[in-house]
């Protein structure tokens, strides 16, 4: 089966470049000819993941594995890790600082949006080590 993998480096606190990875991923999916609503879901999910890495982490990577039917996204950061995942998943919950909120980010919707976009979603986190999010999104029947 043909599949292709891309990995993007995401820098901590680099707001001027934030969104570049997800935008590149979207372009790739359009060139692949992926179904439009799948492309959009992947774009939103990777954008949220990218913003989370920029805002909350010490930097990380986003990888996508694209095959004809599904897109697997792996977002990995280098820490600091999430203390209470259950709480972090709640809509509206955010640990973002006031400075970040003033910029219009940190509304506490990132993780729940990612989950909403994916068919499979898993998150693992270790304090001091980092967080790994795995998302799988597939073409839906009838699309």
């Amino acid at each position, binding site marked *: *089966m*043909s*599949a*292709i993998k891309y990995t993007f480096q995401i820098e901590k606190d680099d707001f001027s470049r934030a*969104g570049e990875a*997800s*935008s590149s991923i*979207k372009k*790739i999916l*359009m*060139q*692949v*000819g*992926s179904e*439009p*609503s799948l*492309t*959009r879901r992947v*774009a*939103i999910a990777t*954008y949220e993941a990218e913003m989370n890495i920029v805002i909350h982490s010490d930097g990380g990577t986003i990888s996508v594995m*694209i*095959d*004809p039917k599904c897109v697997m996204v792996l977002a990995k950061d280098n820490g600091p890790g999430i203390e209470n995942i259950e709480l972090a998943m709640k809509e509206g919950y955010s640990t973002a600082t006031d400075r970040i909120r003033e910029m219009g980010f940190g509304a506490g919707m990132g993780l729940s*949006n990612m989950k909403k976009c994916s068919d499979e979603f898993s998150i693992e986190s270790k304090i001091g080590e980092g967080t790994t999010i795995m998302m799988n999104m597939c073409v839906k029947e009838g699309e």
Partner: protein
Amino acid sequence: MEKEYFHSVILKEDRCIGCTSCLKVCPTEAIRIIDGKARIIDERCIDCGECIRICPNHAKSAVTDNLNVLDKYKYTIAIATMSIYGQFQPNISINQILNSIKAMGFNEVYDTTLGAKIISGLISRYLLLKKKVEGPLINSSCPAILRLIQIRFPDLLPNVVDIETPMEITARIVKIDAAKKTGLDLKEIGVIFFTPCTARATSIKNPLGIKNSYIDAAISIKDIYGEILKNLSVNPSYSVNVETTKETLKWVSAGGQAKSLGMEKYLAVDSIHEVIKVLEDLELGKLEGVDFLELMACRESCIGGPLVIENSFIARAKIGNHAKSLSPLTYTDEEIDQYIKMYEEGFVRLTETIEPRLVMSLDKDISKSIQKMELMREILKNLPGIDCGVCGAPTCRAFAEDIVKGENNHSLCIVKTIESFKNKNLKRKGENKIES
């Protein structure tokens, strides 16, 4: 399936010197330079006219009609874009301009007010209230934007309001009226649109969302400008039957459509490259709290069209001046009811589904596409990434794309060639040294 692609934008080959100006501004990467001449990739071109605007040699042009077309019909009606009012000296009145057009041999003359009024009424009093789609409604009045969404943002197609353009609605109403009045068949009546842009000229021949246009020909403002000037001194004896209002007149300048809706939660964006950025944000769900998006391909909206004469900023000021003396836009309840009926019956509605067109993909078969992506990545590693355009493609990425699609087996990367030449030379020099 769509018919063959008709485009208003064309190339005058003898004028093209193969410079890369148009390559760089094309928002859909629809231009390549082949054998020293610009070529337009038909399926990608959205007729925005950016290439016409930028071409230093005036090699990019528009296919439009001329006044000879009047001979084909027994009865003729001119419909002028309201941006035409921004093209002349401030002391020239709307009445004078319309009379000048009439004097070219038309039986009747209108502007697009009627259509604009109906659209504003329908969106503000009907469509916004029954909106079901997530996110803002998007205007359908710019055909270039419609085609852009179709090929680059197909997932946003449901957000586009399913109403025809002001020119099309006006044309339908006045053509049917004229047929009743004269007893002529619709085919014997010619409706000619005075267009500010290529996108509208294209959408008459190759409409999107409707089966056929009621407009029979499009004349470019640029082409007819001198003729209008000449006729301006004629006695304005024709009583013009247009009720242009403050708000409908401003439809042709940036933000005018959104403002005419009398609502606050809107965002108006003009010029195609900015529109692309905002649509990207919208796709990511970043435009919360916006109910209506006005997107226009040209800077300052239609008054900045590629086929107008006046600088768009000056035109805006002139339009603003004309608007001062006009009465405000109002509706009676009966009018709104009538518009809703027109909409529900399909008279002013986009009755054909606008299908996404995935023209950006490398292959129709996704598996093959993915293989080509892999190959493209390998090729890209060997390209300089400076996007110089000398190979004829707008970017190194587009060059790689053309190669894997099998659409380019004639051009070379000049940078790579020079590099390898230099390396060879260095190597040879090195060898020489050892020998000596």
